[in-house]
């Protein structure tokens, strides 16, 4: 269930996010720091998290990624772009009626692991996929 601070409407949650993570997770500079702030250090690897991402990104500025959690009781899905200067990319809080699957488009500065952390039943699970990002040759 969405945390109480957020369900009052995002327009009023100025520091709820920062408070929830003990500081702005967006400023965290390492994957370990992001995981720590999520409370997800030591998350269990799970094959029930599906990441649909390209092998080789056509353009690192717009990489379509689809994440599906087949773990029962999923309440949160977080995506971390390991090689970005600030790896935290997005966190989705899954409401009761929502299907725990979401598609978005990410910026990837270079070849990177996309690390997904799922919170389900109060526990944390993780999976990752690697996306190659090349510099274009004759893009123009």
């Amino acid at each position, binding site marked *: 269930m*969405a945390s109480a601070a*957020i*369900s009052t*409407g*995002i*327009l009023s*949650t100025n520091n709820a*996010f920062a408070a929830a993570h003990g500081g702005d*997770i*967006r400023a965290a500079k390492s994957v370990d720091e992001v995981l720590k702030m999520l409370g997800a250090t030591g998350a269990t690897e799970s094959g029930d998290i599906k990441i649909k991402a390209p092998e080789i990104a056509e353009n690192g*500025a*717009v*990489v*379509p990624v689809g994440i599906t959690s087949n773990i029962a009781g999923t309440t949160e899905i977080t995506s971390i*772009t390991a090689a*970005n*200067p*600030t790896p*935290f*990319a*997005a*966190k*989705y*809080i*899954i*409401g009761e*009626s*929502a*299907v725990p*699957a*979401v*598609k*978005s*488009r*990410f*910026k*990837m500065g270079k070849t990177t692991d996309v690390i997904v952390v799922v919170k389900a039943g109060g526990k944390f699970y993780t999976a990752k996929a690697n996306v190659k990002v090349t510099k274009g040759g004759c893009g123009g």
Partner: protein
Amino acid sequence: MAKSTIKLRTKEKGGKIQVKALITHPMETGIRKNKKTGKKIPAHYITDLEVTANGKPVITAEWSGSISKNPFISFKYAGSKSDSVTLTWKDNTGKSDSLTKKIGEK
């Protein structure tokens, strides 16, 4: 009337509502430099996004500058054809926008 930054599409199928949105927003990370002046282009990205159905939160997102420019989101929730869906976003400069659509409404 100010044009909405939000394009919202919803479709009902088998008891599930498919929600897709495309938002006009620069999503500046704050890392890029203006090539001519050498100065950093200030960070300007959506930090919070919420979708509600009939007023109840369905999905809430916390985004960073690592989300692409003109961001896209797609997901499904269990709902009905008579639902009213609202998408609201807020960015780091305090700007925000909101759009409400009935299911299937263009």
